[in-house]
């Protein structure tokens, strides 16, 4: 197993109280596979990614749990060892390439720095290697683009440049946090194609995080659904989309517009809104929005349990049904 996250809990310690953005999450990512993590904005998806790299900003931190990467617990690794994992073991790309690229350094230098750090190449060799990485990311005129500053590139090009930086350390796991959300539809398709293509070439695993179930369903072998800091359902993507068990997953799928469905089938939303993480409902945090909820759901949060083959679900009502 490449990555095993066990009972991960991360919180922000605010003046208003403790905010548990990740509240007891466990999952595995095998080498070379693509795992999706889906959920609405503010459910803690990004904090899962930052917890794995132990990079949660102040006043937050990982409180407990284990993040086993190639058998070693990253949360107990000495800082020097952890630095080697960041970049060389696990790469990450963010939603806003414009914000994640340093505005005052040339693209080529930002890539070459990573190559020098993790692959020990000399300055000049690292630069020509950086140009090669840019070319591999489908960037036209890579020599010229390497000399560009981030502000001189278009949105799609910036995204490719950021992926190039992440790939420069040849990671075994790429965490893609909303990799296409900030882009035009056509560019979105290009970037997801690029991710698939580099996964084939470099044989790495991808943890793709998005609010966009369609994107995740399109890319991921397995998909996990997250709600208020917890996983509510995990299954092979095909099964999750075809036979969703959790009422929340069913709601997410119902909310996807279907082309050609016609106006007689109105788009189904999930009633209500994502609760405030500082003021969560009791029991199953989804119960105020759930059509199946009864008094049982208000008492204790349901555990994530096997509901079918390779299919886990955290819902009392589903367990009763099966």
């Amino acid at each position, binding site marked *: 197993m490449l990555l095993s996250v066990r009972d991960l809990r991360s919180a922000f310690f605010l003046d208003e109280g403790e905010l548990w953005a990740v509240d007891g999450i466990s999952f595995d990512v095998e080498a070379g596979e693509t795992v999706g993590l889906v959920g609405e904005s503010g459910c803690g998806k990004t904090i899962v990614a930052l917890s794995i790299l132990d990079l949660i900003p102040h006043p937050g931190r990982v409180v407990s749990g284990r993040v086993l990467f190639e058998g070693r617990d990253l949360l107990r690794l000495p800082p020097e060892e952890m630095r080697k994992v960041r970049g060389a073991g696990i790469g990450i790309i963010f939603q806003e390439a414009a914000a994640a690229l*340093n505005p005052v350094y040339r693209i080529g230098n930002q890539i070459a720095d990573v190559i020098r750090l993790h692959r020990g190449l000399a300055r000049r060799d690292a630069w020509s290697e950086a140009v090669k990485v840019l070319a591999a990311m489908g960037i036209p005129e890579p020599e010229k683009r390497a000399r560009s500053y981030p502000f001189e590139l278009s949105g799609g090009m910036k995204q490719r440049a950021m992926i190039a930086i992440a790939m420069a350390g040849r990671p075994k796991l790429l965490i893609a946090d909303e990799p296409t959300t900030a882009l035009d539809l056509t560019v979105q398709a290009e970037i997801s194609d690029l991710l698939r293509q580099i996964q084939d070439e470099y044989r790495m695993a991808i943890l793709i995080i998005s609010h966009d179930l369609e994107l995740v369903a399109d890319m991921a072998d397995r998909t996990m659904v997250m709600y208020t800091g917890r996983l509510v359902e995990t299954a092979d993507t095909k099964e999750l989309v075809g036979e969703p068990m959790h009422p929340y997953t069913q709601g997410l799928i119902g909310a996807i517009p279907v082309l050609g469905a016609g106006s007689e089938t109105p788009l189904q939303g999930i009633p209500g809104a994502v609760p405030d993480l500082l003021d969560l409902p009791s029991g199953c945090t989804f119960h105020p929005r759930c059509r199946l909820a009864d008094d049982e759901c208000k008492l204790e949060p349901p555990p994530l349990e096997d509901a079918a083959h390779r299919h886990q679900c955290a819902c009392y009502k589903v367990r009763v049904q099966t």
Partner: protein
Amino acid sequence: MLKYIIKRLLLSVPLVLGIVTATFFIARLAPGDPMDMYLEPQRQRQVDPEVIELMRKRYGLDQPIHVQYVTWIKNVARGDFGESFRHRRPVRDIVAEAVPYTLQLTILALLLDALFGISLGIISAVKQYTKLDKTLTVGSLIVYAIPGFWLALMLIMLFSVNLGWFPTSQTRSMNYEDLTMIGKFLDRLWHLALPVFVLGIAGAAGTARYMRNRLLEVLNEEYIVAARARGFRERTVIVKHALRNALIPIVTIYGMSLPFLLGGATIIETIFAWPGMGRLTVAAVGGRDYPIIMATTTIAALLTVLGNLLADVTYAAVDPRVSYDAPRKR
């Protein structure tokens, strides 16, 4: 870039002219007469009214104000700032004597400002929320809030009057001429210590506060998290990725301190009897010494314009996103 600089310089001509014109008329329309100093009864000196009239004529003060203005502009265009009423010497010579004294003071003060301001600001930001940060933040706020003249007087009280460690004022000791080369140098530094400290420490407090806020802002940027996620050392993240971005506006601030460099510090120079541009200006205003008032104002106006231009030009040099040339081809 050159085109931009020329354009900016041409645009600043009317600005400088406007400042100078306003100063000319305000100074002359203000109450008081440069000849008053010859008539003050406490000077116990009777000067013949006819002599006063002659002097008025000699300095052109008998002319209507607009005629005086035109004459002054004509002379300045030839590089002639006239003669000081009080010192009866060319203004150019007097300014040339004052400038080196001011430069000694202001350059050292700016160095102190930058050295302590930037480094303490960085330490404070990197150690955010620690006791050290809190102490530095509160300390810099207090220093920032202390009026310079009060601090100067308190330091003179403590270090000069009570402890006798530093001289109260002046630029050199009485026995200066008898000292060796090294002795002279040390004597100068000894006299510079207090005024430089007062000027520099207030600037450093402001710079430290600004530097801290800027660096904290930058440290919250996503590209800092991204840099950490690439496995760079924290030191590299701070120095290479954060500082370069945080220092950009600081450079601009120092570019704009050009008027201070040559204009000097009016209050501190006066308190320490430092014969620089600041004290010269204050004395000239008090004595209605119009030619000197006009000369120092003109210099200050020019330097302010040049300082702003310098700040903008350095901005383009340190920030690749800023360019004054035609848009680059993408």
